[in-house]
Protein backbone atom coordinates (compact mmCIF):
# COMPACT_ATOMS: atom_id res chain seq x y z
CA UNK A 1 0.00 0.00 0.00
CA UNK A 2 2.92 2.31 0.76
CA UNK A 3 3.96 1.99 -2.83
CA UNK A 4 0.74 3.67 -3.96
CA UNK A 5 1.41 6.75 -1.87
CA UNK A 6 4.93 6.88 -3.24
CA UNK A 7 3.65 6.76 -6.81
CA UNK A 8 1.16 9.43 -6.00
CA UNK A 9 3.83 11.68 -4.56
CA UNK A 10 6.11 11.17 -7.57
CA UNK A 11 3.37 12.04 -10.05
CA UNK A 12 2.40 15.06 -7.97
CA UNK A 13 5.99 16.24 -7.98
CA UNK A 14 6.30 15.70 -11.71
CA UNK A 15 3.18 17.71 -12.37
CA UNK A 16 4.44 20.48 -10.12
CA UNK A 17 7.79 20.56 -11.87
CA UNK A 18 6.52 20.18 -15.43
CA UNK A 19 6.03 23.88 -16.26
CA UNK A 20 9.65 24.58 -15.34
CA UNK A 21 10.96 22.13 -17.90
CA UNK A 22 8.61 21.98 -20.83
CA UNK A 23 7.40 24.66 -23.22
CA UNK A 24 4.04 26.32 -22.89
CA UNK A 25 2.73 24.56 -26.00
CA UNK A 26 3.47 21.24 -24.34
CA UNK A 27 1.84 22.41 -21.15
CA UNK A 28 -1.34 23.12 -23.10
CA UNK A 29 -1.06 19.68 -24.67
CA UNK A 30 -0.59 18.07 -21.27
CA UNK A 31 -3.55 20.02 -19.90
CA UNK A 32 -5.73 18.87 -22.77
CA UNK A 33 -4.59 15.28 -22.23
CA UNK A 34 -5.51 15.48 -18.54
CA UNK A 35 -8.97 16.89 -19.32
CA UNK A 36 -9.68 14.24 -21.91
CA UNK A 37 -8.23 11.62 -19.57
CA UNK A 38 -10.84 12.59 -16.96
CA UNK A 39 -13.45 12.30 -19.70
CA UNK A 40 -12.17 8.86 -20.71
CA UNK A 41 -11.98 7.76 -17.05
CA UNK A 42 -15.60 8.79 -16.58
CA UNK A 43 -16.71 6.72 -19.55
CA UNK A 44 -14.62 3.83 -18.29
CA UNK A 45 -16.80 3.62 -15.17
CA UNK A 46 -19.67 2.32 -17.29
CA UNK A 47 -17.81 0.79 -20.25
CA UNK A 48 -14.89 -0.78 -18.48
CA UNK A 49 -16.20 -1.61 -15.03
CA UNK A 50 -19.91 -2.14 -15.54
CA UNK A 51 -19.83 -3.42 -19.11
CA UNK A 52 -22.31 -0.94 -20.57
CA UNK A 53 -20.91 0.45 -23.82
CA UNK A 54 -22.15 3.97 -24.42
CA UNK A 55 -21.91 5.96 -27.64
CA UNK A 56 -23.49 9.04 -26.15
CA UNK A 57 -21.05 10.20 -23.53
CA UNK A 58 -20.44 13.50 -25.31
CA UNK A 59 -23.89 14.55 -24.09
CA UNK A 60 -22.49 14.95 -20.56
CA UNK A 61 -19.19 16.45 -21.68
CA UNK A 62 -21.06 19.00 -23.77
CA UNK A 63 -23.68 19.69 -21.11
CA UNK A 64 -20.97 20.32 -18.54
CA UNK A 65 -19.08 22.53 -20.96
CA UNK A 66 -22.09 24.60 -21.99
CA UNK A 67 -23.38 24.82 -18.42
CA UNK A 68 -20.02 26.13 -17.19
CA UNK A 69 -19.80 28.57 -20.10
CA UNK A 70 -23.32 29.90 -19.76
CA UNK A 71 -23.05 30.27 -15.97
CA UNK A 72 -19.73 32.07 -16.37
CA UNK A 73 -21.29 34.47 -18.87
CA UNK A 74 -24.56 35.18 -17.12
CA UNK A 75 -24.04 34.53 -13.42
CA UNK A 76 -20.47 34.38 -12.22
CA UNK A 77 -17.13 33.15 -13.49
CA UNK A 78 -16.27 31.79 -10.06
CA UNK A 79 -14.91 28.33 -10.69
CA UNK A 80 -16.68 26.82 -7.70
CA UNK A 81 -19.96 28.11 -9.11
CA UNK A 82 -19.41 27.00 -12.68
CA UNK A 83 -18.02 23.61 -11.75
CA UNK A 84 -20.79 22.95 -9.27
CA UNK A 85 -23.44 24.09 -11.74
CA UNK A 86 -21.99 21.92 -14.48
CA UNK A 87 -21.98 18.88 -12.20
CA UNK A 88 -25.56 19.43 -11.05
CA UNK A 89 -26.88 19.82 -14.57
CA UNK A 90 -25.00 16.80 -15.89
CA UNK A 91 -26.18 14.73 -12.92
CA UNK A 92 -29.76 15.73 -13.67
CA UNK A 93 -29.32 14.87 -17.34
CA UNK A 94 -27.62 11.57 -16.55
CA UNK A 95 -30.36 10.82 -14.04
CA UNK A 96 -33.01 11.40 -16.67
CA UNK A 97 -31.32 9.57 -19.54
CA UNK A 98 -30.28 6.77 -17.20
CA UNK A 99 -33.92 6.08 -16.26
CA UNK A 100 -34.61 5.14 -19.87
CA UNK A 101 -31.30 3.52 -20.67
CA UNK A 102 -31.51 1.03 -17.78
CA UNK A 103 -34.32 -0.70 -19.68
CA UNK A 104 -31.98 -1.95 -22.38
CA UNK A 105 -28.56 -3.53 -22.63
CA UNK A 106 -25.79 -4.37 -25.06
CA UNK A 107 -26.13 -2.97 -28.55
CA UNK A 108 -29.48 -1.38 -27.69
CA UNK A 109 -27.89 0.52 -24.81
CA UNK A 110 -25.26 1.82 -27.21
CA UNK A 111 -27.88 3.00 -29.68
CA UNK A 112 -30.16 4.50 -27.03
CA UNK A 113 -27.33 6.55 -25.53
CA UNK A 114 -26.49 7.66 -29.06
CA UNK A 115 -30.10 8.71 -29.64
CA UNK A 116 -30.23 10.74 -26.44
CA UNK A 117 -26.92 12.44 -27.04
CA UNK A 118 -27.99 13.38 -30.57
CA UNK A 119 -31.16 14.86 -29.11
CA UNK A 120 -29.04 16.91 -26.73
CA UNK A 121 -26.91 17.96 -29.69
CA UNK A 122 -29.96 18.98 -31.67
CA UNK A 123 -31.23 20.98 -28.70
CA UNK A 124 -27.88 22.75 -28.24
CA UNK A 125 -27.64 23.44 -31.97
CA UNK A 126 -31.10 25.00 -32.08
CA UNK A 127 -30.87 27.08 -28.88
CA UNK A 128 -28.82 29.77 -30.59
CA UNK A 129 -29.81 32.39 -28.00
CA UNK A 130 -27.95 30.57 -25.26
CA UNK A 131 -25.39 28.42 -26.99
CA UNK A 132 -24.50 30.37 -30.12
CA UNK A 133 -25.69 27.46 -32.27
CA UNK A 134 -23.34 26.41 -35.03
CA UNK A 135 -21.00 29.31 -34.30
CA UNK A 136 -20.26 27.93 -30.86
CA UNK A 137 -20.19 29.83 -27.60
CA UNK A 138 -17.38 32.37 -27.50
CA UNK A 139 -16.36 35.19 -25.22
CA UNK A 140 -16.48 33.10 -22.04
CA UNK A 141 -14.73 34.87 -19.16
CA UNK A 142 -11.69 33.20 -17.58
CA UNK A 143 -12.43 31.16 -14.47
CA UNK A 144 -11.97 32.83 -11.12
CA UNK A 145 -10.85 30.82 -8.09
CA UNK A 146 -11.01 32.41 -4.63
CA UNK A 147 -11.19 35.86 -6.15
CA UNK A 148 -8.20 35.30 -8.38
CA UNK A 149 -8.52 35.09 -12.15
CA UNK A 150 -6.80 32.09 -13.74
CA UNK A 151 -5.67 33.83 -16.87
CA UNK A 152 -2.44 31.97 -17.38
CA UNK A 153 -2.08 28.51 -18.89
CA UNK A 154 0.38 27.36 -16.23
CA UNK A 155 -1.96 28.13 -13.33
CA UNK A 156 -4.80 26.50 -15.19
CA UNK A 157 -2.59 23.46 -15.68
CA UNK A 158 -1.97 23.28 -11.93
CA UNK A 159 -5.68 23.53 -11.15
CA UNK A 160 -6.55 20.85 -13.67
CA UNK A 161 -3.66 18.58 -12.66
CA UNK A 162 -4.77 18.83 -9.02
CA UNK A 163 -8.34 17.99 -9.96
CA UNK A 164 -7.13 15.13 -12.08
CA UNK A 165 -5.13 13.62 -9.21
CA UNK A 166 -8.10 14.03 -6.90
CA UNK A 167 -10.56 12.41 -9.28
CA UNK A 168 -8.15 9.64 -10.20
CA UNK A 169 -7.63 8.79 -6.56
CA UNK A 170 -11.35 9.01 -5.88
CA UNK A 171 -12.19 6.71 -8.77
CA UNK A 172 -9.53 4.26 -7.70
CA UNK A 173 -11.03 4.07 -4.24
CA UNK A 174 -14.49 3.72 -5.74
CA UNK A 175 -13.40 0.89 -8.00
CA UNK A 176 -11.75 -0.94 -5.11
CA UNK A 177 -14.77 -0.51 -2.83
CA UNK A 178 -17.57 -3.07 -2.44
CA UNK A 179 -19.61 -0.90 -4.80
CA UNK A 180 -16.92 -1.21 -7.48
CA UNK A 181 -16.74 -4.97 -6.94
CA UNK A 182 -20.46 -5.23 -7.58
CA UNK A 183 -20.11 -3.24 -10.80
CA UNK A 184 -17.42 -5.66 -12.01
CA UNK A 185 -19.71 -8.48 -10.99
CA UNK A 186 -22.45 -7.03 -13.19
CA UNK A 187 -20.01 -6.86 -16.08
CA UNK A 188 -18.95 -10.46 -15.62
CA UNK A 189 -22.31 -12.01 -14.93
CA UNK A 190 -25.36 -9.93 -14.19
CA UNK A 191 -27.73 -12.87 -13.80
CA UNK A 192 -25.62 -14.35 -11.05
CA UNK A 193 -25.61 -11.10 -9.08
CA UNK A 194 -29.35 -10.81 -9.51
CA UNK A 195 -29.82 -14.31 -8.16
CA UNK A 196 -27.66 -13.33 -5.19
CA UNK A 197 -30.32 -10.75 -4.36
CA UNK A 198 -28.67 -7.58 -5.65
CA UNK A 199 -30.84 -5.05 -7.40
CA UNK A 200 -28.35 -4.63 -10.24
CA UNK A 201 -30.39 -1.89 -11.91
CA UNK A 202 -29.77 0.48 -9.02
CA UNK A 203 -26.03 -0.14 -9.17
CA UNK A 204 -25.99 0.34 -12.93
CA UNK A 205 -28.02 3.50 -12.58
CA UNK A 206 -25.65 4.88 -9.95
CA UNK A 207 -22.63 4.05 -12.11
CA UNK A 208 -24.30 5.81 -15.03
CA UNK A 209 -24.96 8.95 -12.99
CA UNK A 210 -21.44 9.02 -11.55
CA UNK A 211 -20.05 8.60 -15.01
CA UNK A 212 -22.24 11.41 -16.32
CA UNK A 213 -21.23 13.72 -13.47
CA UNK A 214 -17.53 13.17 -14.14
CA UNK A 215 -18.15 13.67 -17.84
CA UNK A 216 -19.69 17.03 -16.93
CA UNK A 217 -16.63 17.90 -14.84
CA UNK A 218 -14.29 17.22 -17.75
CA UNK A 219 -16.54 19.27 -20.04
CA UNK A 220 -16.45 22.28 -17.75
CA UNK A 221 -12.66 21.98 -17.49
CA UNK A 222 -12.52 22.03 -21.28
CA UNK A 223 -14.44 25.31 -21.19
CA UNK A 224 -11.91 26.85 -18.79
CA UNK A 225 -9.14 25.54 -21.01
CA UNK A 226 -10.40 26.82 -24.37
CA UNK A 227 -12.70 29.68 -23.41
CA UNK A 228 -14.85 28.44 -26.26
CA UNK A 229 -17.35 25.62 -26.86
CA UNK A 230 -18.35 24.22 -30.22
CA UNK A 231 -21.45 22.13 -30.84
CA UNK A 232 -19.12 19.43 -32.19
CA UNK A 233 -18.21 18.77 -28.53
CA UNK A 234 -21.69 17.27 -28.13
CA UNK A 235 -21.74 15.47 -31.45
CA UNK A 236 -21.54 11.68 -31.69
CA UNK A 237 -18.01 11.86 -33.13
CA UNK A 238 -16.85 13.14 -29.73
CA UNK A 239 -18.53 10.14 -28.09
CA UNK A 240 -16.74 7.94 -30.61
CA UNK A 241 -13.37 9.53 -29.90
CA UNK A 242 -13.61 9.03 -26.15
CA UNK A 243 -14.80 5.44 -26.59
CA UNK A 244 -11.74 4.83 -28.73
CA UNK A 245 -9.52 6.36 -26.05
CA UNK A 246 -10.93 3.89 -23.54
CA UNK A 247 -10.66 0.89 -25.84
CA UNK A 248 -7.17 1.70 -27.14
CA UNK A 249 -5.93 2.43 -23.65
CA UNK A 250 -7.45 -0.67 -22.13
CA UNK A 251 -10.97 -0.65 -20.75
CA UNK A 252 -11.62 -1.77 -17.21
CA UNK A 253 -8.25 -0.55 -15.96
CA UNK A 254 -7.47 2.69 -14.17
CA UNK A 255 -4.45 3.85 -16.14
CA UNK A 256 -5.66 2.57 -19.51
CA UNK A 257 -8.03 5.44 -20.41
CA UNK A 258 -5.38 7.97 -19.37
CA UNK A 259 -2.87 6.37 -21.71
CA UNK A 260 -5.50 6.17 -24.43
CA UNK A 261 -6.30 9.86 -24.11
CA UNK A 262 -2.60 10.75 -24.20
CA UNK A 263 -1.99 8.60 -27.22
CA UNK A 264 -4.90 9.95 -29.28
CA UNK A 265 -4.11 13.59 -28.50
CA UNK A 266 -0.39 13.14 -29.21
CA UNK A 267 -1.06 11.18 -32.38
CA UNK A 268 -3.51 13.75 -33.70
CA UNK A 269 -1.21 16.62 -32.87
CA UNK A 270 1.97 15.18 -34.28
CA UNK A 271 0.58 13.52 -37.40
CA UNK A 272 -1.60 16.45 -38.39
CA UNK A 273 1.43 18.72 -38.59
CA UNK A 274 3.07 16.52 -41.21
CA UNK A 275 0.23 15.21 -43.32
CA UNK A 276 -3.47 15.78 -43.78
CA UNK A 277 -3.91 12.02 -44.15
CA UNK A 278 -4.02 11.64 -40.37
CA UNK A 279 -7.21 9.63 -40.47
CA UNK A 280 -5.42 6.97 -42.50
CA UNK A 281 -2.70 6.64 -39.88
CA UNK A 282 -5.08 6.78 -36.93
CA UNK A 283 -7.33 4.19 -38.57
CA UNK A 284 -4.39 1.87 -39.19
CA UNK A 285 -3.41 2.23 -35.55
CA UNK A 286 -6.91 1.16 -34.46
CA UNK A 287 -6.74 -1.87 -36.73
CA UNK A 288 -3.29 -2.85 -35.48
CA UNK A 289 -4.52 -2.60 -31.92
CA UNK A 290 -7.50 -4.83 -32.54
CA UNK A 291 -5.41 -7.47 -34.27
CA UNK A 292 -2.22 -7.42 -32.23
CA UNK A 293 -2.97 -5.73 -28.90
CA UNK A 294 -6.58 -6.52 -28.06
CA UNK A 295 -6.06 -5.55 -24.44
CA UNK A 296 -4.96 -2.05 -25.36
CA UNK A 297 -2.00 0.03 -24.31
CA UNK A 298 -2.42 -1.29 -20.81
CA UNK A 299 -1.82 -4.78 -22.14
CA UNK A 300 1.39 -3.74 -23.88
CA UNK A 301 2.43 -2.10 -20.70
CA UNK A 302 1.88 -5.05 -18.47
CA UNK A 303 3.58 -7.19 -21.01
CA UNK A 304 6.65 -4.95 -21.04
CA UNK A 305 6.85 -4.75 -17.27
CA UNK A 306 6.57 -8.50 -16.92
CA UNK A 307 9.24 -9.01 -19.54
CA UNK A 308 11.38 -6.42 -17.80
CA UNK A 309 11.28 -8.45 -14.62
CA UNK A 310 11.66 -11.92 -16.04
CA UNK A 311 14.02 -11.17 -18.93
CA UNK A 312 13.50 -13.45 -21.86
CA UNK A 313 10.62 -15.42 -23.24
CA UNK A 314 7.26 -13.97 -24.18
CA UNK A 315 5.18 -13.20 -21.16
CA UNK A 316 1.85 -14.61 -20.15
CA UNK A 317 0.05 -11.61 -21.54
CA UNK A 318 1.59 -11.94 -24.99
CA UNK A 319 0.81 -15.61 -25.03
CA UNK A 320 -2.71 -14.83 -24.03
CA UNK A 321 -3.03 -12.16 -26.68
CA UNK A 322 -1.61 -14.43 -29.33
CA UNK A 323 -4.02 -17.11 -28.35
CA UNK A 324 -6.90 -14.70 -28.53
CA UNK A 325 -5.74 -13.30 -31.80
CA UNK A 326 -5.28 -16.56 -33.65
Amino acid at each position, binding site marked *: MKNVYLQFAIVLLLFAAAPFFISSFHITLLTEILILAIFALSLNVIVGYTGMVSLGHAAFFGTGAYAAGIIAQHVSANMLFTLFGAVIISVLLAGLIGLFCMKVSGFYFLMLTLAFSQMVYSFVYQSTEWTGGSNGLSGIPRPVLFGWEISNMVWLFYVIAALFMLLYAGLRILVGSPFGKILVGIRENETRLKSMGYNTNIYKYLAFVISGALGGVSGSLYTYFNGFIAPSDVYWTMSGTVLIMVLIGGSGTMIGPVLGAAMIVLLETTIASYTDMWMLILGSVF*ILFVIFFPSGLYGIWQDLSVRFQKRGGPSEVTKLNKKRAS
Partner: protein
Amino acid sequence: MEIIIAQLINGVSYGMLLFVITCGLALVFGILGVLNLAHGSLYMIGSYVAYSLTTTFTQSFWTALIVAPLAVAVIALVIERTLLRVTYQLGHLSQVLLTFGLAYVFHDLTKWIWGSNVLSIRVPDLLSGSVTIVGQTFPLYRLVVIGVGIIIAAGLWWIQNKTRWGAIIRAGLSDREMIGALGVNINLVFTTIFVLGGILAGFGGVVASPILGLYPDMEFQTLILALIVLVIGGLGSIAGTFTASVLVGVLETFGRYLFPELSMFLIFGLMAMILVWRPSGLLGKQVVEG
Protein backbone atom coordinates in the same frame (compact mmCIF):
# COMPACT_ATOMS: atom_id res chain seq x y z
CA MET B 1 -54.98 17.48 -49.69
CA GLU B 2 -52.89 17.31 -52.83
CA ILE B 3 -49.87 18.50 -50.94
CA ILE B 4 -50.36 15.73 -48.37
CA ILE B 5 -50.39 13.09 -51.09
CA ALA B 6 -47.36 14.66 -52.72
CA GLN B 7 -45.50 14.65 -49.40
CA LEU B 8 -46.51 11.04 -48.84
CA ILE B 9 -44.95 10.09 -52.17
CA ASN B 10 -41.84 12.07 -51.21
CA GLY B 11 -41.73 10.21 -47.91
CA VAL B 12 -42.03 6.78 -49.48
CA SER B 13 -39.37 7.56 -52.07
CA TYR B 14 -37.00 8.85 -49.39
CA GLY B 15 -37.79 5.80 -47.28
CA MET B 16 -36.93 3.43 -50.12
CA LEU B 17 -33.69 5.32 -50.60
CA LEU B 18 -32.96 4.67 -46.91
CA PHE B 19 -33.78 1.00 -47.37
CA VAL B 20 -31.37 0.70 -50.29
CA ILE B 21 -28.67 2.26 -48.09
CA THR B 22 -29.42 0.19 -45.00
CA CYS B 23 -30.18 -3.33 -46.21
CA GLY B 24 -26.52 -4.40 -46.44
CA LEU B 25 -25.82 -3.26 -42.88
CA ALA B 26 -29.00 -4.94 -41.65
CA LEU B 27 -28.06 -8.22 -43.31
CA VAL B 28 -24.56 -8.30 -41.83
CA PHE B 29 -25.59 -7.23 -38.36
CA GLY B 30 -28.73 -9.32 -38.25
CA ILE B 31 -27.01 -12.54 -39.24
CA LEU B 32 -23.36 -12.24 -38.28
CA GLY B 33 -23.88 -9.99 -35.28
CA VAL B 34 -21.09 -7.78 -36.65
CA LEU B 35 -21.76 -4.07 -36.31
CA ASN B 36 -20.00 -2.97 -39.47
CA LEU B 37 -19.12 0.70 -38.99
CA ALA B 38 -17.32 0.55 -42.34
CA HIS B 39 -20.67 0.00 -44.04
CA GLY B 40 -20.87 3.65 -44.99
CA SER B 41 -17.37 3.43 -46.42
CA LEU B 42 -18.32 0.47 -48.61
CA TYR B 43 -21.30 2.49 -49.80
CA MET B 44 -18.98 5.39 -50.53
CA ILE B 45 -16.53 3.24 -52.48
CA GLY B 46 -19.43 1.98 -54.57
CA SER B 47 -20.39 5.59 -55.33
CA TYR B 48 -16.90 6.69 -56.26
CA VAL B 49 -16.20 3.66 -58.46
CA ALA B 50 -19.50 4.33 -60.19
CA TYR B 51 -18.50 7.96 -60.62
CA SER B 52 -15.24 6.99 -62.31
CA LEU B 53 -17.00 4.49 -64.53
CA THR B 54 -19.72 6.89 -65.62
CA THR B 55 -17.49 9.87 -66.26
CA THR B 56 -14.27 8.47 -67.63
CA PHE B 57 -14.09 4.87 -68.75
CA THR B 58 -17.39 3.59 -70.01
CA GLN B 59 -19.79 6.51 -69.71
CA SER B 60 -22.46 3.97 -68.84
CA PHE B 61 -24.53 4.00 -65.70
CA TRP B 62 -25.63 0.43 -66.35
CA THR B 63 -22.07 -0.90 -66.41
CA ALA B 64 -21.40 0.95 -63.18
CA LEU B 65 -24.50 -0.61 -61.64
CA ILE B 66 -22.92 -4.05 -62.09
CA VAL B 67 -19.18 -3.37 -61.81
CA ALA B 68 -19.15 -1.07 -58.76
CA PRO B 69 -20.94 -3.52 -56.41
CA LEU B 70 -18.55 -6.25 -57.56
CA ALA B 71 -15.55 -4.04 -56.82
CA VAL B 72 -16.94 -3.44 -53.34
CA ALA B 73 -17.55 -7.19 -52.99
CA VAL B 74 -13.85 -7.85 -53.57
CA ILE B 75 -12.93 -5.33 -50.87
CA ALA B 76 -15.48 -6.88 -48.51
CA LEU B 77 -14.04 -10.33 -49.22
CA VAL B 78 -10.52 -9.17 -48.37
CA ILE B 79 -11.70 -7.47 -45.17
CA GLU B 80 -13.61 -10.52 -44.00
CA ARG B 81 -10.86 -13.02 -44.78
CA THR B 82 -7.93 -11.06 -43.37
CA LEU B 83 -9.16 -8.79 -40.60
CA LEU B 84 -12.70 -9.47 -39.51
CA ARG B 85 -12.16 -13.21 -39.09
CA VAL B 86 -9.63 -12.50 -36.36
CA THR B 87 -12.17 -10.59 -34.33
CA TYR B 88 -15.01 -13.13 -34.23
CA GLN B 89 -13.66 -14.52 -30.97
CA LEU B 90 -12.85 -11.10 -29.52
CA GLY B 91 -16.39 -9.81 -29.22
CA HIS B 92 -18.40 -6.88 -30.44
CA LEU B 93 -16.20 -4.08 -29.16
CA SER B 94 -13.22 -5.25 -31.15
CA GLN B 95 -15.32 -5.35 -34.27
CA VAL B 96 -16.57 -1.85 -33.60
CA LEU B 97 -13.01 -0.57 -33.23
CA LEU B 98 -11.76 -2.51 -36.24
CA THR B 99 -14.49 -1.41 -38.62
CA PHE B 100 -14.23 2.15 -37.34
CA GLY B 101 -10.50 2.05 -38.06
CA LEU B 102 -11.28 0.75 -41.54
CA ALA B 103 -13.72 3.61 -42.05
CA TYR B 104 -10.93 6.08 -41.23
CA VAL B 105 -8.53 4.35 -43.60
CA PHE B 106 -11.03 4.24 -46.45
CA HIS B 107 -11.89 7.88 -45.83
CA ASP B 108 -8.37 9.03 -46.57
CA LEU B 109 -7.81 6.55 -49.38
CA THR B 110 -10.87 7.75 -51.29
CA LYS B 111 -9.87 11.35 -50.63
CA TRP B 112 -6.44 10.56 -51.98
CA ILE B 113 -7.80 8.90 -55.14
CA TRP B 114 -10.82 11.05 -55.91
CA GLY B 115 -10.06 14.34 -54.13
CA SER B 116 -12.38 16.26 -51.85
CA ASN B 117 -14.57 18.09 -54.34
CA VAL B 118 -18.31 17.63 -54.44
CA LEU B 119 -19.14 15.27 -57.33
CA SER B 120 -22.31 13.90 -58.76
CA ILE B 121 -23.47 11.06 -60.98
CA ARG B 122 -25.83 11.75 -63.85
CA VAL B 123 -29.06 9.82 -64.01
CA PRO B 124 -29.13 7.84 -67.30
CA ASP B 125 -31.26 9.50 -69.99
CA LEU B 126 -33.78 6.70 -69.88
CA LEU B 127 -34.64 7.51 -66.25
CA SER B 128 -34.09 11.24 -66.16
CA GLY B 129 -37.54 12.59 -67.00
CA SER B 130 -40.24 13.90 -64.72
CA VAL B 131 -43.70 12.58 -63.99
CA THR B 132 -46.71 14.59 -62.86
CA ILE B 133 -48.87 13.07 -60.13
CA VAL B 134 -51.67 14.98 -58.33
CA GLY B 135 -50.51 18.17 -59.97
CA GLN B 136 -46.97 17.89 -58.62
CA THR B 137 -43.83 17.12 -60.56
CA PHE B 138 -41.73 14.14 -59.45
CA PRO B 139 -38.42 13.04 -60.90
CA LEU B 140 -38.85 9.67 -62.61
CA TYR B 141 -35.66 8.38 -60.98
CA ARG B 142 -37.21 8.73 -57.51
CA LEU B 143 -40.05 6.47 -58.54
CA VAL B 144 -37.57 3.99 -60.00
CA VAL B 145 -35.76 3.91 -56.65
CA ILE B 146 -39.04 2.95 -54.97
CA GLY B 147 -39.21 0.00 -57.36
CA VAL B 148 -35.57 -0.96 -56.74
CA GLY B 149 -36.14 -0.92 -52.99
CA ILE B 150 -39.14 -3.20 -53.28
CA ILE B 151 -37.27 -5.62 -55.55
CA ILE B 152 -34.29 -5.85 -53.15
CA ALA B 153 -36.59 -6.36 -50.19
CA ALA B 154 -38.52 -9.08 -52.00
CA GLY B 155 -35.28 -10.75 -53.11
CA LEU B 156 -33.83 -10.81 -49.61
CA TRP B 157 -37.08 -12.06 -48.15
CA TRP B 158 -37.18 -14.85 -50.74
CA ILE B 159 -33.59 -15.90 -50.05
CA GLN B 160 -34.12 -15.90 -46.30
CA ASN B 161 -37.41 -17.73 -46.23
CA LYS B 162 -37.60 -19.89 -49.32
CA THR B 163 -34.13 -21.21 -50.04
CA ARG B 164 -31.76 -23.71 -48.45
CA TRP B 165 -29.31 -20.89 -47.85
CA GLY B 166 -31.97 -19.02 -45.99
CA ALA B 167 -32.58 -22.03 -43.78
CA ILE B 168 -28.87 -22.28 -42.97
CA ILE B 169 -28.75 -18.57 -42.20
CA ARG B 170 -31.75 -18.74 -39.92
CA ALA B 171 -30.23 -21.70 -38.18
CA GLY B 172 -26.95 -19.84 -37.84
CA LEU B 173 -28.78 -16.96 -36.23
CA SER B 174 -30.15 -19.10 -33.45
CA ASP B 175 -27.42 -21.67 -33.03
CA ARG B 176 -24.02 -21.43 -34.58
CA GLU B 177 -22.73 -24.76 -33.39
CA MET B 178 -25.68 -26.66 -34.70
CA ILE B 179 -25.07 -25.80 -38.31
CA GLY B 180 -21.44 -26.73 -37.87
CA ALA B 181 -22.70 -30.12 -36.77
CA LEU B 182 -24.83 -30.31 -39.90
CA GLY B 183 -21.67 -30.31 -41.97
CA VAL B 184 -22.08 -26.78 -43.29
CA ASN B 185 -18.89 -24.76 -43.54
CA ILE B 186 -19.69 -21.94 -41.14
CA ASN B 187 -16.73 -19.86 -42.29
CA LEU B 188 -18.02 -19.95 -45.82
CA VAL B 189 -21.45 -18.84 -44.64
CA PHE B 190 -19.92 -15.88 -42.80
CA THR B 191 -17.79 -14.86 -45.76
CA THR B 192 -20.72 -15.11 -48.14
CA ILE B 193 -22.97 -13.02 -45.95
CA PHE B 194 -20.35 -10.33 -45.45
CA VAL B 195 -19.62 -10.17 -49.17
CA LEU B 196 -23.33 -10.03 -49.92
CA GLY B 197 -23.58 -7.15 -47.46
CA GLY B 198 -20.74 -5.47 -49.35
CA ILE B 199 -22.49 -5.96 -52.68
CA LEU B 200 -25.67 -4.41 -51.29
CA ALA B 201 -23.68 -1.49 -49.85
CA GLY B 202 -21.96 -0.89 -53.19
CA PHE B 203 -25.22 -1.23 -55.06
CA GLY B 204 -26.80 1.25 -52.66
CA GLY B 205 -23.93 3.63 -53.38
CA VAL B 206 -24.57 3.53 -57.12
CA VAL B 207 -28.35 3.83 -56.82
CA ALA B 208 -28.37 6.57 -54.17
CA SER B 209 -25.57 8.84 -55.35
CA PRO B 210 -27.42 10.41 -58.31
CA ILE B 211 -29.71 11.79 -55.57
CA LEU B 212 -27.39 12.24 -52.60
CA GLY B 213 -24.19 13.18 -54.41
CA LEU B 214 -20.57 12.43 -53.51
CA TYR B 215 -18.73 14.59 -51.01
CA PRO B 216 -16.22 14.26 -48.17
CA ASP B 217 -17.65 12.72 -44.98
CA MET B 218 -20.58 11.24 -46.92
CA GLU B 219 -19.92 7.82 -45.40
CA PHE B 220 -20.47 8.96 -41.82
CA GLN B 221 -23.76 10.65 -42.67
CA THR B 222 -24.87 7.51 -44.45
CA LEU B 223 -23.74 5.32 -41.58
CA ILE B 224 -25.73 7.26 -38.99
CA LEU B 225 -28.88 7.17 -41.15
CA ALA B 226 -28.45 3.43 -41.71
CA LEU B 227 -27.92 2.78 -37.99
CA ILE B 228 -31.11 4.64 -37.10
CA VAL B 229 -33.17 2.68 -39.60
CA LEU B 230 -31.54 -0.56 -38.49
CA VAL B 231 -32.35 0.01 -34.83
CA ILE B 232 -35.91 1.15 -35.43
CA GLY B 233 -36.61 -1.83 -37.63
CA GLY B 234 -35.13 -4.37 -35.30
CA LEU B 235 -32.25 -6.74 -35.84
CA GLY B 236 -32.32 -9.77 -38.08
CA SER B 237 -35.50 -8.85 -39.82
CA ILE B 238 -35.64 -7.66 -43.42
CA ALA B 239 -39.34 -6.90 -43.03
CA GLY B 240 -38.51 -4.75 -39.98
CA THR B 241 -35.83 -2.81 -41.83
CA PHE B 242 -38.23 -2.28 -44.72
CA THR B 243 -41.00 -1.03 -42.46
CA ALA B 244 -38.60 1.22 -40.55
CA SER B 245 -37.26 2.72 -43.78
CA VAL B 246 -40.71 3.72 -44.92
CA LEU B 247 -41.65 4.94 -41.43
CA VAL B 248 -38.52 7.08 -41.06
CA GLY B 249 -38.86 8.36 -44.63
CA VAL B 250 -42.47 9.41 -44.18
CA LEU B 251 -41.96 10.79 -40.68
CA GLU B 252 -38.91 12.80 -41.64
CA THR B 253 -40.62 14.16 -44.75
CA PHE B 254 -43.65 15.28 -42.78
CA GLY B 255 -41.40 16.51 -39.97
CA ARG B 256 -39.61 18.73 -42.47
CA TYR B 257 -42.94 19.91 -43.83
CA LEU B 258 -44.56 20.68 -40.47
CA PHE B 259 -41.64 21.43 -38.09
CA PRO B 260 -38.62 22.07 -40.31
CA GLU B 261 -36.33 23.01 -37.42
CA LEU B 262 -37.02 19.89 -35.41
CA SER B 263 -36.56 17.18 -38.00
CA MET B 264 -33.31 15.79 -36.59
CA PHE B 265 -34.66 15.85 -33.05
CA LEU B 266 -37.78 13.98 -34.20
CA ILE B 267 -35.87 11.13 -35.81
CA PHE B 268 -33.65 10.49 -32.79
CA GLY B 269 -36.69 10.93 -30.56
CA LEU B 270 -38.48 8.24 -32.54
CA MET B 271 -35.46 5.98 -32.22
CA ALA B 272 -35.29 6.52 -28.46
CA MET B 273 -39.02 5.94 -28.04
CA ILE B 274 -38.95 2.70 -30.00
CA LEU B 275 -35.91 1.46 -28.09
CA VAL B 276 -37.54 2.16 -24.75
CA TRP B 277 -40.92 0.82 -25.78
CA ARG B 278 -39.74 -2.20 -27.76
CA PRO B 279 -36.03 -2.75 -27.20
CA SER B 280 -35.76 -5.20 -30.08
CA GLY B 281 -37.20 -2.81 -32.63
CA LEU B 282 -40.47 -2.81 -34.53
CA LEU B 283 -40.28 -6.30 -35.96
CA GLY B 284 -36.98 -7.52 -34.53
CA LYS B 285 -36.35 -10.91 -33.06
CA GLN B 286 -34.87 -11.24 -29.62
CA VAL B 287 -31.21 -11.78 -30.45
CA VAL B 288 -29.02 -13.41 -27.85
CA GLU B 289 -26.58 -10.88 -26.48
CA GLY B 290 -22.98 -11.86 -26.93
